[in-house]
């Protein structure tokens, strides 16, 4: 009989479809795993509601659970319970190594433009905080574009949600 630990381990093998250096478990989008008599219920929270990878993630989870010989049920929970704070420390490190600056911590209120324009964001290549906002938006909903004025490298910043 499949155990919750086996399910978590299997889900940890699924790479984020758009940022494949981290797994869905690293990303913190799996809220819970419940195992009952070979039936596995996974509760999953989308990062951004318009994320085009949503269906791909859901299908990948169903296939992984089915691969363990269990019956999958993946529920998408569209509420505020996922935040970029849920990205694991290991996940943040993997992002940084791949050239994505990890997100700043979430605050009680939604982020403001003045924060994004501040020098608080660190370049993932050289570590300098002499970076500026180039575009609030980037190649996927979860990323902004910044530019490092120290090493002159553009980089992507994970948005705080």
């Amino acid at each position, binding site marked *: 009989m499949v155990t919750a630990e086996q399910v978590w381990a299997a889900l940890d093998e699924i790479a984020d479809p758009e940022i494949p250096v981290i797994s869905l478990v690293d990303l913190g989008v799996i809220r819970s795993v419940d195992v009952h008599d070979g039936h596995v219920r996974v509760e999953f929270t989308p990062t951004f*509601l318009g994320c085009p990878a949503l269906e791909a993630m859901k299908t990948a989870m169903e296939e992984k659970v089915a691969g363990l010989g269990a019956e999958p049920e993946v529920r998408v929970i569209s*509420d505020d319970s996922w935040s970029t704070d849920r990205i694991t420390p290991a996940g943040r490190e993997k992002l940084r190594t791949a050239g994505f600056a990890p997100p700043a911590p979430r605050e009680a209120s939604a982020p403001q433009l003045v924060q994004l324009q501040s020098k608080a964001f660190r370049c993932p290549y050289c570590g300098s905080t002499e970076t500026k906002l*180039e575009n*609030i*938006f980037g190649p*996927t*909903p979860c990323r902004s*574009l910044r530019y490092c004025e120290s090493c002159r490298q553009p980089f992507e910043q994970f948005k705080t949600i």
Partner: protein
Amino acid sequence: MNELLLGLADDELIIGWRDSEWTGIAPMLEEDVAFSSIAQNEIGHARAVYELLTDDADALALDREPAEYRCAPLVELRLLDWAHAIARRWLYEQADEIRISALREDDDARIAGLAAKINREEAYHRMHAEMWHERLRDELRFRDAVAELWPYALGVLPPAQRGELASRTGLAEVGAVERGTHTDDLAQLWDEMTMVRRSQPAGTQW
């Protein structure tokens, strides 16, 4: 069906569609990226709200006749110049924040939870709109566009929330272009938006 939520979802779908029309032709590359990303978010919000109302979001989004949509006329308008496009984004985000804030207090936890999620994403749209408003606010073309679209912006909100929109934008409340009426622009948009859906053979899987 909850008319308020259906109106919200239709607004997000249609403005997402209109925003996506700048993909590839915005006046600068950064704005190509921004409008495309905003459009994607808005359509994602529409889907999530439709899913509160029905098991088949695609059917609700795409299988109605134009007259059955509950979107506000503001989002339907086909706006071909940048001053108008930015004026609409700015006005729409101001109005949207007011209603989303109200929904965060909803007694239904699913509605309140989704509104909180949407609000965190919309914060980035508000920043974008604010940035452009700051840049263009003293330009005559932009001010004219805001004045022209203002009665439409009021129509996004129910009458009780319009005073707040007026005080936020610093504009005097006037007669609104009300939800429930449609502009001719919607029919053209609908034709394009539903074309693939209408032409697919029954049972097609994507």
